[in-house]
């Protein structure tokens, strides 16, 4: 997964077109780290959309601007807007896969 920062998040996701997935995480969020390998596995399967990750502690305002105030969050963006997301306990591999399938 390509790591974005507060500058590249804007360019890549908010000003981008098409569908993409963003994994909002932080270094101090252990459930995020536990989930990430599952997201990376899905990245290998669903090559139709780009997968990004954003370290929210280095882009706190960006995250809050996206109404992300709790981790982990796995979100789907379409043409620059967040169209779906799975927050915390709902962010399981199974649910993420179902969410991806809705948008490809």
């Amino acid at each position, binding site marked *: 997964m390509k790591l974005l920062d507060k500058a590249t998040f804007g360019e890549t996701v908010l000003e981008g077109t098409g569908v993409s997935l963003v994994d909002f995480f932080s270094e*101090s*969020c*252990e*459930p995020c780290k536990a989930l990430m390998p599952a997201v990376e596995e899905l990245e290998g399967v669903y090559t139709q959309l780009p997968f990004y990750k954003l370290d929210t502690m280095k882009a706190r305002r960006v995250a*809050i601007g996206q109404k992300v*105030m*709790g981790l982990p969050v796995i979100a789907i963006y379409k043409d620059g807007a967040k169209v779906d997301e799975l*927050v915390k306990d709902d962010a399981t591999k199974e649910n993420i896969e179902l969410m991806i399938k809705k948008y490809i």
Partner: protein
Amino acid sequence: MERIIDVAIIGAGPAGLSAGLYAGRAKLDTVIFEKDRVGGQIVTTQEVANVPGSLFNEGSVETTGPKLIARMVDQAEEFGAERVMDEIVDVVLDGEIKILKGKKAEYKARTVILAAGAFPRKLGVPGEKELTGKGVSYCATCDGPFFTDLDVFVVGGGFSATEEGMYLTKFAEKVTILVRDDKFSCAQSVVDKVEKNEKIEVMYNTEITEIKGDGMVESCILRNRVTGEETEHFADEEIGTFGIFPFIGFQPDTTIFKDKIELDKWGYIVTDETMATNIEGVYAAGDIRPKQLRQVVTAASDGAIAATMAEKYIEEKFHG
């Protein structure tokens, strides 16, 4: 021939993994069922310093929850325990062969170890569910940094509320601890520390009755339990939001066992010292049962005992 598992373990936290390790090592056909991810509550912990032997990890002093769990998983698998990703949604426990109904398949087992753990107790107020991860959080280490320079409410009067409240002062502008009763329920030494902390305000006899906001927490209703007076707390207009962290204890994950196994009035599975429940061949281990100390080491201990008792039971019942 149809497979009949010797030891079916529901839950892959420290209790379930420890049971899996012991049962696997006893050469029993062992399956650990996990709902979506391994680890249980300990995976939210950054530093596990109180598990004997956990302190010194390659190159660094602390072991994180996920690292510890990863090692437990490897160890259980090393001894032959199998892991199956399936959520068990119903059980038939009273026969000699127990039936576990999963979302993906049905399983049969000679013994069952219930180790599904507990999850943070919810406030149970309108708006809480919708705004979880949007200002409402049960994990200070995960979400604390989002509340840098914001206001935070911590709900609870016990040890975890005070500890987490103090942790959150690292980030928050101000932490208000809402205590339901007229005093804290934890040790006075901890209360003294809280009262000395300039960033913490304590409101006694106070509870939250509703959380409001469109996509983010914007306000909440506070009720004084003595006078009945209700006030609405609004977010600072410029900042627009604040945090609510409930730390009001844990709730066991036992809804599917209701009316099938003896539970206490809080929903925990009743066991004796050998982790046996009131149903023959069914054991419980870890946070799912009533206990004084809820720690990795006590969960692992329960798992070891449950697996050993299951082994004995199989030996007597099926091979005796």
